[in-house]
């Protein structure tokens, strides 16, 4: 079944769409949730919430790529779950490792928490990622959006782990300089 057909099922409120989504995307969504939560049961619940969110939203939306759309939902749900429960067992998860790396970008600075400023920050991140060459973009998104391990990210970016590591280091520095220039890190 093509993605367009699956989206059409959502638009027609055909419940088989959820079943098909589970069949096609469960492993993909579980992987993202597991990398953030590190707990299978929590991850499974997030993935189930994602199916429901897809059911609620896809009757009116037609995302360009369904996997990316669902990936965004599950990522946010998993992060929210981690924060809400406050039983943060981050140690050992790829999310924890990614956050630690990202802390270098914002070290010693203050970041905006107001909603409007957070939206501006999101737009700046989009602008930053758009300027990156394809391989660097793949690395950045793989590591900090999907929270894939360094090894995996390096593999699908077509480079060695050491090369990926040094490139990510340069990317974080570049992002820090960019955010400083834009006044987001004082």
């Amino acid at each position, binding site marked *: 079944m093509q993605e367009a057909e699956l989206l059409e099922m959502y638009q027609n409120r055909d419940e088989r769409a959820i079943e098909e989504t589970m069949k096609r995307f469960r492993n993909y969504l579980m992987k993202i949730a597991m990398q953030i939560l590190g707990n299978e049961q929590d991850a499974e619940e997030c993935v189930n919430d994602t199916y429901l969110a897809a059911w609620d939203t896809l009757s009116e939306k037609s995302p360009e*790529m369904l996997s990316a759309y669902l990936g*965004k939902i599950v990522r946010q749900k998993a992060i929210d779950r981690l924060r809400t429960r406050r039983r943060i067992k981050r140690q050992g998860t790829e999310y924890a490792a990614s956050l630690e790396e990202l802390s270098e970008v914002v070290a010693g600075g203050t970041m905006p928490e107001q909603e409007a400023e957070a939206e501006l920050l999101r737009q700046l991140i989009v602008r930053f990622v758009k300027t990156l060459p394809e391989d660097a973009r793949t690395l950045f998104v793989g590591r900090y959006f*999907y929270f894939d391990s360094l090894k995996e990210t390096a593999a699908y970016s077509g480079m060695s782990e050491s090369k990926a590591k040094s490139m990510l280091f340069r990317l974080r520095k570049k992002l820090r300089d960019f955010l400083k220039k834009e006044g987001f890190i004082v």
Partner: protein
Amino acid sequence: MKNEELLADAIGGLDEELLASVSRKRDMDSTNRFVVVKNETETVKKRSFRKFWLPLSACLVLLLALAAAGATALVRGLRISENDEGEKMVEYVPDAYECVPLSELTGDVVNTPARMKQRLLQYLAGEQPSLEGMEGMCYEDSTGQIRYIGEVTDTYPVFSFNVGMPGELFQSFSTIDAAEAYIGYAGMHMPRISKPTVQLGVYSAGATEGGYRAVNADSEFELILTGVFAAYRIGEMGSAVSGAVIQFGDNYQHGPITFKNSQDRSMAQETVTVGTRTFSVLRIAPEFEGGCECVTVFWDENKVQYTLEVAYASEDEAAAQALITEWMNAF
């Protein structure tokens, strides 16, 4: 909330357009691993997708461009030009565009149109080709099921078409002698390199009326191109693919090997003479600091077009140069 969490949230707001290309790469690599099947009795051995597939993929792009290009009367050699959109184009113009008559082939490759048809009927019937006789590349999907190049699946239609359009076949061989014998063209002499190959085989392309988008159970294929490809590893992340290609078919015009430098990387051309042969060499600068250097060497003889594509990290330059020199001396 901590600063890094705010930053992670902002990254979570990347738009789907930006995520799409990365998502495709992840899907292809992290949930699917290529495996090389030696034969049906040997253990299936997992290989890294990028190291083995990309060099071959690059060749296929090259070949398809070659098959699609129109014939033009140009002086032999390498040319870098710009198209109407200002993108840099590279063309290698061989000595002649003559096709090899199929009657000059003595190998089994002449039977590939029938195999292409058979494979097509298998796809249309939803059958998995049997492992026997299916030497070549296949991959393991996220459920652990072995799938085959060219198999059109619901999950990866684009992937499948990129890898194996109807009318494409790839057959693995363990030696260059065996691969050349499968083609059986006396004018072909694939350079022998001392390094072991990590992948070796014959790629064949067939054309059908209306193109692959119009294929149906009545489609018949005509062999238009075949070639031997051998992949070698250079250092930790580099690779080289040596190819020897011949073309057939009076119904198809064949032109120069053409490809586009879509990344706008700087390119330089030169010629290198070894003995009586003058090779054309194209060098492409890395896309980013620390990226791969790319060198492609072109040569044609007896209606066979030879290419060597090399991509290597700067620390492996000596090994890459040694392989290029050995290749040039192996004719």
